[in-house]
């Protein structure tokens, strides 16, 4: 196994035993980026020399025998919405040309304190306002999208261009690309991770979270970037796989509709396997699902238009066409529409809190189908109906943003096309430990997702 293929947990163990040097690890990751990223374009800014320099310093520190922070020498990528002092935050947009961040985002400071080494900034759908990340290819097949908006982060982690990455999620933007690229994505409970120093999309829906290769790595990264440290940490909760008595809600409405049959079958198998492992499957009628998408659009459009109120008026032609149209539309949305959506959000949150008194988590697909072709605008379902790609990717994800509850996407298998898909666990606020435990069980059932094969990358 090459160093770039290691998980954080594996690499940290080898580094602590002095069997792997941070320089060797970072160099391996950079070699991988130089080999593949011309075709994938996960990175908007590669920090090769600074990363190697940090790796040399990390190595010196290790040789002193000093106690090591948890992510010592681990190469991590940052979505290019997250500020690093002295570097541009491009948001993958011409609007940001010339921008240089004056200070580090809180999460950047936390990761640095934990010993992480930043390999660079990764592409986002422009200002995180989309689900495809057009600049970037899916490492499993370069003619397909990696998803978005954290598409660069998920692609980099998937192909070995970083051991982990930070993403942001306003309507699925961590979980969707994680599912489409075959990696793990965690949207934490609202308020768990600081948004300071991150360019907002819709502030009341935005979240920052980890994208990793394993569930345990997601737990480690979450601990590093959480605002509060808790005794019963997420990572500690993974020492056993005990889920006996866990009530796992299987929705009878909404979440299994308009779903690729192969994904539906894979999730049915996972449900049976989790039941065999001790989970109690409970059929759930999920409340107020008809309010999820209109609520999401009403809030996201209005808040994004507010965030961009100056630039959409002073330099509208600097935006890409899709984002420009959404911002112009949002700028004309009446306040009553926004307030109606906020009201729906509050009702949904209350109804979901009640639902989670009956079940510990929901098991649902992350995406209803695999990665679309780049530039594809809609899916055509078996009944002949058409659905825009953005709607298809958001509809199983947005409720967790509206209600603020945590949601974890874990690779659940590969479609006959060869493209990966994910299973999603959604739980009540601060139930990350339960979700991670369920996710780790899925990893045990499905096996660890391999790296994309070189032939697929070159296809």
């Amino acid at each position, binding site marked *: 196994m090459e160093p770039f293929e290691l998980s954080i947990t594996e690499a940290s163990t080898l580094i602590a035993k002095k069997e792997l040097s941070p320089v060797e690890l970072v160099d391996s990751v950079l070699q991988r980026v130089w080999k593949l990223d011309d075709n994938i374009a996960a990175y908007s800014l590669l920090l090769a020399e600074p990363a190697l320099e940090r790796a040399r310093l990390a190595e010196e520190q290790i040789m002193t025998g000093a106690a090591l922070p948890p992510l010592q020498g681990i190469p991590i990528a940052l979505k290019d919405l997250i500020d690093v002092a002295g570097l541009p935050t491009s948001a993958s947009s011409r609007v940001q040309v010339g921008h240089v961040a004056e200070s580090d985002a809180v999460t950047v400071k936390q990761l640095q304190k934990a010993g992480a080494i930043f390999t660079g900034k990764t592409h986002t759908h422009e200002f995180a306002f989309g689900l495809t990340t057009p600049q970037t290819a899916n490492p499993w097949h370069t003619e397909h999208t990696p998803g978005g908006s954290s598409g660069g982060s998920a692609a980099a982690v998937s192909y070995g261009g970083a051991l982990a990455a930070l993403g942001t999620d306003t309507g699925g933007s961590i979980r969707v690309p994680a599912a489409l690229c075959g990696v793990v994505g965690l949207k934490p409970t609202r308020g768990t991770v600081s948004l300071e120093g991150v360019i907002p999309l819709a502030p009341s829906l935005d979240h920052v979270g980890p994208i990793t290769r394993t569930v345990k790595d997601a737990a480690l990264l979450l601990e590093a970037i959480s605002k509060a440290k808790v005794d019963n940490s997420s990572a500690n909760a993974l020492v056993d796989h005990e889920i006996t008595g866990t009530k796992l809600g299987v929705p009878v409405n909404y979440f299994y509709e308009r779903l690729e049959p192969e994904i539906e079958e894979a999730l049915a198998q996972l449900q049976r396997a989790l039941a065999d492992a001790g989970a109690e499957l409970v059929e759930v009628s999920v409340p107020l699902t008809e309010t999820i998408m209109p609520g999401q659009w009403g809030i996201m459009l209005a808040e994004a238009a507010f965030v961009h109120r100056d630039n959409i008026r002073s330099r509208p032609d600097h935006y890409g066409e899709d984002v420009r149209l959404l911002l112009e539309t949002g*700028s004309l949305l009446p306040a009553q*529409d926004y307030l109606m959506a906020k009201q729906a959000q509050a009702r949904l949150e209350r109804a979901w809190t009640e639902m989670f008194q009956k079940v510990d988590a929901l098991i649902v697909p992350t995406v209803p189908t695999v990665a679309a072709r780049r530039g594809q605008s809609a899916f055509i379902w078996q009944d002949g109906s058409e659905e825009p790609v953005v709607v298809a990717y958001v509809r199983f994800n947005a409720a967790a943003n509206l209600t603020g509850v945590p949601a974890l996407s874990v690779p659940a298998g590969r479609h006959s096309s060869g493209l990966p898909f994910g299973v999603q666990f959604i739980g009540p606020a601060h139930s990350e430990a339960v979700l991670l435990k369920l996710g780790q069980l899925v990893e045990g059932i499905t096996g660890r997702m391999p790296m994309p094969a070189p032939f697929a990358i070159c296809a």
Partner: protein
Amino acid sequence: MTIPAYTAEMIADLANRHELPLPQERRAAVAATLTHVRSFIGTLQSARQDAKGAITEKDFHGTV
């Protein structure tokens, strides 16, 4: 709630009131998108009426 089908002329007027520069060639697309989005958000009104119990100001979150 009935949502008007926005025309390019209505959008020009709205954009003017919001001091939003909107070239003529963009107005039809914005009109179609705003009509679609507002109709979609408008479905929340019927969802609210179908729900149990009256909705009051307490249903709003305090902050954005």
